[in-house]
């Protein structure tokens, strides 16, 4: 499942770049996510998904696969598995920052992959749910970058 987002923030490309590279800022924006450890380009953490009666907790790790400041390109990969073995989830987020007037344009392409029970029993809802979670994540990032700009 590939999801695309585009937004602009009123901060310079350099500032935006710095924030995108600050995991402590980026990760908590993802609904239910928390960081347990950061080590250079790598991190571990968990994502809790709670939807009415359904509760899942993905524990996993991720890393910056690519940080090309010149091209303004960041690729973050993360994957985890549900603590009860219900399934695995993975995401590759590719963000490309370009100058747009005073601010910065951000193109985000997310490749999401959710397997196991949530996909098997979710009546297709997992797609909408992931989409919503990603919307919230990017809205939060955008807000943070806008606030601090």
């Amino acid at each position, binding site marked *: 499942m590939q999801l695309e987002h585009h937004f602009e923030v009123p901060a310079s490309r350099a500032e935006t770049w710095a924030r995108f590279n600050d995991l402590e800022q980026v990760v908590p924006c993802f609904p239910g996510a928390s960081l347990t450890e950061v080590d250079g380009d790598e991190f571990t953490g968990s994502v809790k998904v709670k*939807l*009415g*009666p*359904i*509760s*899942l907790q993905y524990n996993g790790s991720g890393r910056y696969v690519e940080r090309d400041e010149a091209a303004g390109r960041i690729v973050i990969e993360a994957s985890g598995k549900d603590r*009860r073995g*219900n399934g695995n989830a993975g995401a590759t987020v590719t963000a490309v920052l370009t100058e747009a007037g005073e601010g910065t344009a951000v193109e985000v392409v997310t490749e999401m992959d959710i397997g196991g*029970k*949530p996909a098997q*029993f979710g*009546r*297709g*809802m997992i*797609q*909408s*749910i992931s989409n*919503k979670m990603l919307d919230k994540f990017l809205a939060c990032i955008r807000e943070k970058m806008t606030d601090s700009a």
Partner: protein
Amino acid sequence: MIPSAFDYEAPATVAEALTLLADDSREVKVLAGGQSLLPVLKLRMADPELVVSLQQIDELRGVRMEDQTLVIGAMTRHADVAREPLIGAHAPLLARAAAEIADPQVRHRGTIGGAVVHADPASDMPATLCALEAQMQVVGPSGQRTVPAAEFFEDFFTTVVEEDELLTAIRVPSYDDWGIGYEKFTRVAQQWPIVSVAAMVRLEGGSIAEARVALGNMDTVPVRAAGVEAALSGAAPTQEAVAAACASAAEGTNPTEDLNGDATYRRHLATVLARRAVLAAVADAGA
């Protein structure tokens, strides 16, 4: 098939139940009829530490009239909603939709409150209660509040009912002179609806005086088709007028896409089913 282990309490009063829910040291789930919760537990998509059953709470059961309002206890079973004469007389749309829920066994066990709090956008009750402009009675540690159906549903499986609160009753105004129509579109009988439409109209002097149209499974929450309702108000109860009014049924909706249909198809279905439901309601109202 085997849920994770949990503790179980079956309090006899709402007050006792609230006390149990107030315990935030452990994860608690409320069990009403269990027809949605138990499958989730069996698949281990959830593992509460405590399950609080409302089964023993008599005050949550039953249907009565208060002034011109039906008051339906949250633990009233679908089968009872479907056959209760008071509901049949004053809110026939609710009886009709309740009779369509899942299958007879589920209707013998599942409850209106359970279905509503579960808030599956595809289920029959949420959209129906929106069409009926029902009021949800919620009680919590800080007392009771009443929430209109339109504000009750927040997202997939998510309502305004907090973890320490209970839905106790649903209040439905009386619709004695209204005609009703209910369209539930499925591929096989026991499937969740791909789209559903609950409609009511009141005729006056040969034209439609008021209409209520709500859509199920066209978004993460039930949707009132306000544009359709406005267009129907004052319209002639004819095929053409109803069709014209219902053409905008899908406006502003955001349907899920799944194996049963993409958004384009669902939007189209919403307009067809809205028209059919409204025409049925018009016929039912005696036009």
